């Protein structure tokens, strides 16, 4: 299984590195996020902070609040669409060719997930590094924990995206599914708008969203509150999401390809 995972990882990584435009986008994306979001939201945070913490985002420097959100968002959007590449591979016959070998189906899946996660971790580190240059102050352990959380999120979503691709086998079916899923997940996670502003029913719904806990944990970690209970819940949610995603995807990959 490990052998097949590494073989697949190497193969997929080479294919990726062959597309210079893709590399440029992958590096540019985090920087774009930073450049666009931070100046926009800074005044809002300051206004919130002036009112006290009761109604809005947790207190802290604008960077400390938004960089974790951006990291999570990167994790979600960087991984969610990998299923499209799998559909292209199904269409070209590559997947079928690999499935008639004795290679483990889990290995064929994990090799791909591993590539996506490595790319995501590099992007997340880049984003954090550049934010530090811009003026973010974050404890090293906090930043590392957040990047680990983002990586786990990436594992989960990339595995699920592959599962959806393998299941639907058509771009036309995958696109609406991803659109349908992404918006509520994003809103309820509190990345874009603070959930404390939401009515009670929405807050309850949000609390049931594991992504929400992940976002909270990332924010807590960035503030350096490594003893906070939210951190534990967030990490636990991220681990469960990753394991759950791989388990579901593995089941789909074990099935016949009909």
């Amino acid at each position: 299984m490990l052998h097949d995972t590494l073989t697949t990882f190497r193969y997929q990584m080479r294919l990726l590195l062959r597309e210079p435009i893709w590399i440029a986008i992958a590096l540019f994306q985090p920087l774009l996020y930073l450049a666009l979001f931070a100046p926009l939201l800074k005044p809002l945070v300051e206004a919130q902070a002036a009112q006290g913490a009761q109604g809005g985002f947790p207190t802290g420097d604008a960077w400390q609040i938004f960089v974790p959100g951006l990291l999570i968002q990167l994790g979600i959007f960087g991984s969610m669409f990998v299923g499209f590449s799998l559909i292209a591979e199904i269409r070209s016959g590559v997947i079928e060719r690999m499935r008639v070998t004795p290679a483990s189906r889990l290995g064929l899946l994990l090799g791909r997930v591993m590539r996506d996660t490595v790319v995501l971790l590099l992007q997340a580190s880049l984003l954090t590094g550049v934010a530090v240059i811009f003026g973010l102050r974050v404890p090293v352990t906090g930043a590392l924990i957040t990047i680990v959380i983002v990586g786990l999120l990436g594992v989960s979503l990339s595995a699920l995206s592959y599962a959806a691709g393998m299941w639907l086998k058509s771009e036309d079916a995958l696109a609406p599914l991803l659109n349908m899923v992404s918006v509520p997940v994003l809103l309820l996670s509190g990345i874009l708008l603070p959930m404390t502003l939401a009515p009670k029913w929405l807050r309850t719904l949000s609390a049931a969203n594991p992504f929400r806990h992940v976002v909270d944990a990332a924010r807590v970690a960035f503030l350096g509150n490594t003893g906070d209970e939210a951190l534990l819940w967030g990490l636990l949610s991220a681990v469960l999401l990753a394991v759950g995603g791989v388990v579901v995807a593995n089941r789909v990959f074990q099935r016949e390809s009909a």
Partner: protein
Amino acid sequence: MIAVDQLRRTFQSKTGPVEAVRGVSFAVAAGEIVGFLGPNGAGKTTTQRMLSTLLTPTGGNATVAGCDLRKDPVGVRRKIGYVPQGGSTNPLASIVEELRTQAALHRVPRADAEARIDELLLSLDLQGLGARLTQTLSGSQRRRLDIALGLIHRPKLIFLDEPSTGLDPHSRANLWNHIRHLRDHDGATIVLTTHYLDEADALSDRILIMDHGQIVAEGSPQQLKRRISGDVVTFDVKDHQDAAKAVLGALAGVRDLSIVDSTVRAVVDQGSVDALPLMRALDAAGIPVAAMKVTQPSLDDVFLTLTGRSLRDSDTAASSAAAAPGAN
């Protein structure tokens, strides 16, 4: 090498169930080249995909290379090579990357793999192209790479789905030699599918003729042709096929009448003697004959006799059958 018992596969489609393979049984001995011949949609690919573990049969059983298809699919995968019909390469991967990856997935040791890759590139006329991305290859080169990928681990049992589709005549001849070489020198067993009569005839030790998900005949090319004892007489009668068929059908000694395009075909005992009376009968009935031909039975005549359709115009036959499901 292969024993198949009542294998079947039904697909669920929006328009209802499609019985792609309706209970086929056959055996393949070690060292044989067996050709599945049949029109598009006959179920050849579905049969191969079941035997190579890519599709689960909806009925029946099979033993492939000593392993039970249902109980030990991984054992089957270890022993077989499979070259799919529609290509199997990534546009952005190079030839050697594809071959190395496939070798690694088959657990071929690194050093062996490199030697094997050189050998395959040479024998499939791809030498010097190892670093090329597959998207820059010609269709024929890419097809030969597909075949190399299926052979990388020296399988003893090889499935080839429409191997020569997309090949130029020169590569096609080379491929046929290569396939014979696999049998003669490597002791490999080969199961191939084709809708080309000449390919089935030239390459197969044994042919299984498939139509509508069933095997309708089986035997060596010679045996199959001998099933039609006698000669085939073909009259080109333009638009008078039905009238001509009626006239010829009333004559003694005329068998297996069929219409293909503007011609009517009949099987008779001895073409050189029996053709002329048929010609005269058509003349007497006032049916103009534009041309007449006496030939030895071909595989196409065998197929025609068995199914009432010609393999030569099988593509139109298959599409009209698809348009009117249930029609026979």
